[in-house]
């Protein structure tokens, strides 16, 4: 919220919301798993708005896919509306966008560039997209094979972009619970590409990816010989740093791999 205010916009926080369900239902007959998302969209409708900005990648993907499903199929929408007999009907008019889309389309990266007070000069950042923002193509916020949005953001903040072919690979997602070694190896593979090309750190947008690359990546150090995990940043942390906002809510000490050292070395803090 502090970031949006610093950029001169205002976002209103939703009063009532529930867990979106994380994955969109993949079978043709399964409508129940769309309920959670529809309920959120109804809450947006009830509060009199027609657009919702979502912070989490997986939520964006789920809400967008659900929205698409009910706007394409009138039957599904009616069934869901009838099931939720105590709530208002969802009319299908809410637009869902991710915070990155908001920054790119409504604020504009050039506006962000002008407001940067502490450019991330000298910091070599590898952008990592993961899956949910880019696939399936109907709900992607950028090109699924060659996305640019995070790279453009990094340039606007004054940093250097390190491009890698693994920037769109899946991090392992929920396997962090039942098959955590798989996710550790994934984190190692993805980060190694960046390390080999001289990246200092990784910038990403999904909270689960961050947990997997950060915590599981640190565990990969014991699985792969000679491997060292580079620090992982959530994109809003770097934006806040560049805009010169208060560092305390960023919780930089809570990372598994210490990010402060590299920021000090590059003279950013």
């Amino acid at each position: 919220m502090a970031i949006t205010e610093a950029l001169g916009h205002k976002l209103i926080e939703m009063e009532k919301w529930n867990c979106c369900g994380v994955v969109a239902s993949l079978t043709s007959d399964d409508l129940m798993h769309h309920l959670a998302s529809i309920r959120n969209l109804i809450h947006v409708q009830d509060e009199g708005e027609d657009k919702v900005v979502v912070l989490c990648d997986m939520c964006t993907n789920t809400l967008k896919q659900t929205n698409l499903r009910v706007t394409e199929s009138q039957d599904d929408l009616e069934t869901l509306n009838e099931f939720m007999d105590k709530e208002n009907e969802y009319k299908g008019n809410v637009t869902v966008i991710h915070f990155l889309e908001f920054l790119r389309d409504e604020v504009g990266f050039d506006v962000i560039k002008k407001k940067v007070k502490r450019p991330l000069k000298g910091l070599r950042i590898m952008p990592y997209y993961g899956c949910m923002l880019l696939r399936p193509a109907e709900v992607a916020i950028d090109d699924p094979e060659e996305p640019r949005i995070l790279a453009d953001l990094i340039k606007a903040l004054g940093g250097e972009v390190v491009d890698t072919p693994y920037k769109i690979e899946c991090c392992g997602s929920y396997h962090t619970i039942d098959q955590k070694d798989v996710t550790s190896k994934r984190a190692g593979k993805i980060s190694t590409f960046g390390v080999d090309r001289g990246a200092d750190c990784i910038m990403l947008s999904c909270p689960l990816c961050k947990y997997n690359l950060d915590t599981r990546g640190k565990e990969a150090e014991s699985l792969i010989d000679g491997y060292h995990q580079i620090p992982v940043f959530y994109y809003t942390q770097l934006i806040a740093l560049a805009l010169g906002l208060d560092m305390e809510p960023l919780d930089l000490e809570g990372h598994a791999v210490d990010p402060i050292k590299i920021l000090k070395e590059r003279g950013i803090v």
Partner: protein
Amino acid sequence: MSENNNIEASQQETNDDEIKSGFYEIYVMGKRYKVPIGMTIMKAIEYAGYQFIRSCGCRAGFCGACSTVYRKEDEQKLNFALACQTLVEDGMYLVQIPFVPASKAKYDIDELKPEENTILSIYPEIARCVSCNTCTKSCPQDIDVMMYIQNALRGNIQKAAELSFDCIQCGMCAMRCPADIKHYHVGQLARRLCGKYLDEKSENLKVRLQEVLDGKYDKEIEELMTMDPDKVIEKYKSRSIEAAEEGKA
């Protein structure tokens, strides 16, 4: 629940022409009875001749034992209520649910910390919630059950405790949940964590407890225990109803 084979219903099945005004027809597990208007479900079932040996408790809407599932004639929807609090209506199809076999996790409240993931790590099934709202619709106390489970999932222990405050542990929510969540146990954990770690401690209580431990009231209690019964009655009759002055408590 009543023992059908031991106690016979004192009312036989009614004929249509015997239905007089002033009576409603109800069906207890499929068997038809006529009962006077104006009774609670519990009283009506007892009027029909059943004796409650389960599914009956305080008869005051507080213990959650008498959960009832009913359907009205010509309707398809299932409704939930407490038998001791709800009046009978014409054409009610009734059944009692005396017990819900919901598993409760074992934990030591002294060893828990009120952190974001605490409730989730003790009851991980709350992550299965699909927000279908069936629990809220099954609650006889009109609690927003889905919302307090969502708050517990998010780690907002205080809000979960606040929203689940009226819960009487009847178990209807847990019976109907497609994700096998035990809502009332989750709510209880939230309230316990809140009460122990998050709510403000009562300073007056601490002071009074210390006074008791220091023996401030020992002499008075000793006197009362050895006093002549007539004198006790006299003392009781002449007690002051208003709060005592400061320092004389």
